[in-house]
């Protein structure tokens, strides 16, 4: 009895599935199905997703925003559960992107026009405590001023989450820095500590990235390491340390859009508009400040932007 019921259930699910599959195929190429845009938990990404979504809605498409993890989303893009991700940063997502593109199930939709930078950063007042900054050698000379009991006598460098990579441990060793990396775990924890130190005017060096609200709210500068080149990360002989790689700063890079490869055939018009999406760092910075610092709602900020920049986004559609 129980077996028969089980069999019935399985058959039913099979039939339902077949039905949906046929339903999907029967639609015209410009489908009414929602285009699913993944959103993450940082502001610039939510803004660019929302802008793209609003433009697609103006074109008459249905849009759905799906919350997904930055790196875990690739499996969703490959299977077609998600259709579009607006911000893949070269600095953190390069490997995952290349791996995903290699499967052939995702498509590189080009650069967003934004430029990612991330490196060691300090608030401006630190310059008074440690003269000679932003040069990295000067930073190294006053490492002790950044030390805490668990790192003493070395300085404490607040790194990003262990998942972000960044080769900071290797950089410290290669350049002979008197610092120790303490990993913050999340962006929230990282900015919490920067905020606390900034309020007390206490020395701190931390991993900061841009575009992001932290460098807009708190005045500060990047530490100047030897300029990054590809050779620095691949060839030990390059740079001041002949035996080690990573004896330079971090690479800067593009921020790209990625789509499910089926998007092109299912929504060709949308495909074109997404490819044309461009926004500059300054423009995004202004939007981020409005959301994070002036506490406005993303929906309001984006609809204002849509009104003010009609000429810009109408060009993407043509």
């Amino acid at each position, binding site marked *: 009895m129980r077996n028969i019921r089980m069999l019935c259930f399985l058959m039913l699910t099979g039939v*339902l599935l077949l039905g949906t599959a046929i339903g999907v195929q029967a639609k015209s190429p410009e489908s009414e199905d929602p285009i699913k845009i993944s959103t993450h938990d940082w502001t610039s990404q939510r803004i660019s997703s929302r802008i793209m979504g609003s433009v697609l809605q103006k074109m008459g498409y249905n849009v759905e925003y*799906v919350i997904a993890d930055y790196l875990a989303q690739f499996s969703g893009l490959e*299977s077609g559960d998600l259709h579009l991700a607006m911000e893949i940063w070269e600095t953190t997502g390069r490997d995952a992107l290349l791996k995903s593109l290699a499967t052939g199930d995702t498509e590189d939709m080009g650069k967003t026009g934004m430029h990612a930078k991330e490196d060691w950063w300090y608030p401006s007042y630190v310059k008074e405590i440690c003269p000679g900054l932003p040069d990295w050698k000067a930073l190294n000379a006053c490492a002790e001023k950044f030390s805490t009991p*668990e790192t003493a006598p070395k300085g404490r460098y607040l790194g990003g989450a262990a998942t972000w990579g960044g080769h900071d441990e290797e950089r410290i060793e290669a350049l002979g820095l008197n610092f120790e990396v303490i990993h*913050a775990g999340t962006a*929230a924890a*990282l900015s919490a500590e920067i*905020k*606390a130190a900034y309020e007390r005017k206490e020395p701190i060096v931390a991993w900061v990235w841009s575009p992001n609200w932290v460098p807009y709210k708190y005045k500060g500068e990047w530490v100047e390491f030897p300029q990054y080149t590809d050779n620095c990360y691949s060839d030990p002989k390059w740079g001041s340390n002949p035996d080690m790689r990573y004896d330079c700063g971090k690479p800067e890079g593009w921020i790209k859009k990625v789509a499910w490869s089926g998007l092109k055939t299912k929504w060709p018009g949308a495909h074109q508009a997404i490819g044309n999406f461009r926004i500059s760092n300054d423009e995004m910075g202004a939007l981020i400040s409005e959301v994070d610092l002036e506490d406005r709602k993303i929906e309001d900020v984006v609809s204002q932007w849509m009104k003010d920049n009609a000429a810009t986004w109408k060009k993407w559609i043509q």
Partner: protein
Amino acid sequence: MTTTTKDRALQSVLFSAAADCRTLARRGVERLRPLAIVLAIVAGVGLAGRHLGWIDAYPDSWIVPLKDWISAAMAWLLHECNLGLFTFKEMTRSISWLISWPLKGAQGLLYQGIDLSILGGSWRLPHLPWAAVVGIGALLGLSLQGWRLAAMTAGGLLYLVLFGQWESAMETLASVIIAVPLGALLGMVLGIISARTKTAEAAIRPVLDLMQTVPIFAYLVPILFLFGFGPVSAMIGTIIYAAPPMVRCTLMGLRSVPADVVESGLVSGCSRRQMLFKIFLPSALPEIMVGLNQVIMLSLNMVIIASMIGAGGLGYDVLNALRQLKIGRGLEAGLSIVVLAVILDRLSQAAARKSKMRERGIGWTRRKSLAAAAAVIILTGGASVLWDGFYVYPESWSVTTAPFWEGAMTWINLHFYDFFYGLRNLLLIYILMPVKKFLVELPWAGVVAALAFISYRLQGVRLLLVTVGLCLFITVTGYWEKAIITVYLCGIGALLSSLGGIFIGICAAGHRRLTGALNLLLDTLQTLPAFVYLMPCVILFRVGDVSALIAIVAYAVVPVIRYTLHGISQVPTPVLESSRISGCSKRQLLVKVQLPLALPDIVLGINQTIMMALSMVVITALIGTRDLGQEVYMALTKADIGRGLVAGVGVACIATVTDRLMQAYISAIKHKTGQTP
């Protein structure tokens, strides 16, 4: 009176004191002997480790690549596994498609509105106005219990309205009111199956243990792969996490149905189905309702984590607010989760009591309740037509306390930082760092041998095999050091929680008003997302083990307080009376009577506290700890199924070993105090 009598009295006192000392010393030695043996084992193996490296540190080349095997197996399951007519993935996808319908319905009803296309035209059915939901909530409270509950429910919901949390709260509520019945149903079915036969129970129990102790992050990735991205996956994760207590409670309820009730059913010729629905389930209802309550609490516990993989709502608000360091806004959103939890909890408890009352014909009839609810909807609907504000509360009217909290945080940071920083360094230098160093340097083989000895002493060969097996799992998969760091942080956390919790419990026991306030605080601590207090911790104590420790203690202290209170209040009154008559002082009463009798309860509470501390490892990973929790978290962000599951099972192994040892210890004490045979 003579000096001689005095002398003699003194002499006898001295004599008995000396005798006391001697027995005490003897008992002390007896107590210390096992400890000495344990130390000897560790030291001996450690010495051996000097000569045999593998005893000291497990060689990397011996690590079994279990995680790669699991990843490969999952890849096969996802891409190739074919069940004949359709693939495995298609089956799971159709399940999530089925679940998405009721979820869409609830979302439409509560905050989205439902689009209908009937007769060629498309219509939009509006969602319930907030005023209607508040009204229905109050009605539920009124019909289930009375004015007090009605006022509490309405007040809680009005908080959500006033503070501008309504839409997010309804989004969360929509997924909770679908997840809870599904989780409860799954739990009940599993409970009924395991009540039927011993083999089924034996098969289901370890699965339940795993469901409860493997950190949720560990199985989020497979769920995402199988069920797709979005709120449905988040809900399935919630169901898996929240169902186990329901299974246990159902099983307990069914087992404790009185034999005469069962017999009367059999005698009157009930079929098997009738037996289940008319006899067993109704008699087990009280236990099942306890289970339901747990399912509700755990579902709301999952809100934050669910929001990381696709559920929006309050959890997403908390995460976003904290990423922007809007601590006040995060707190308000977090408190909204607490409000929902408390309302649902109190209503479900009232419903449980009501089901008993209904048998006696007290309270509202179903028809009356439905009519009242319909009246509320029509009334508020009409009001919404007249004024929009009843439908969607105007944003400009909402209030917030966020600036206050942010100001307070800055003020504390500026004025009290030195104090907090000193405290942090004190903890770090004198407690945390030495303990960590000590534990990490212990030889793994020695620790396993010592644990084996303890298990054998407590219960016998079976427990020994379990302990050794689980420890070897951790070692062989290459996670020994990470596991030890987990033990270090959670162990200190559990220790501090237990000491503090028992103290608070003792102080509060017997003061009714204090206990009431304490209960509300405990409910809050249990449902307020840890993330909300984790970030202020980071501001005051910086990133690191101290912040993690405080978060662990804040969350894990709850059960030990609850169980201590419970244990002390359960001491039978005759025992208390007779102790008082025999002249015990208040202190003696506590130390010699109440605490020893409450000890099994307290140990059970400590056991729960350890479990809660272990469940915090993934949360503390968010501020950069380097233990198994971080491993699980990294696997999540890299979508590495095998790594996440193996590390997650590693956490479960630690939990299981501790649990088994504690259980064995409890039964040993109970045996000694003669509470159970």
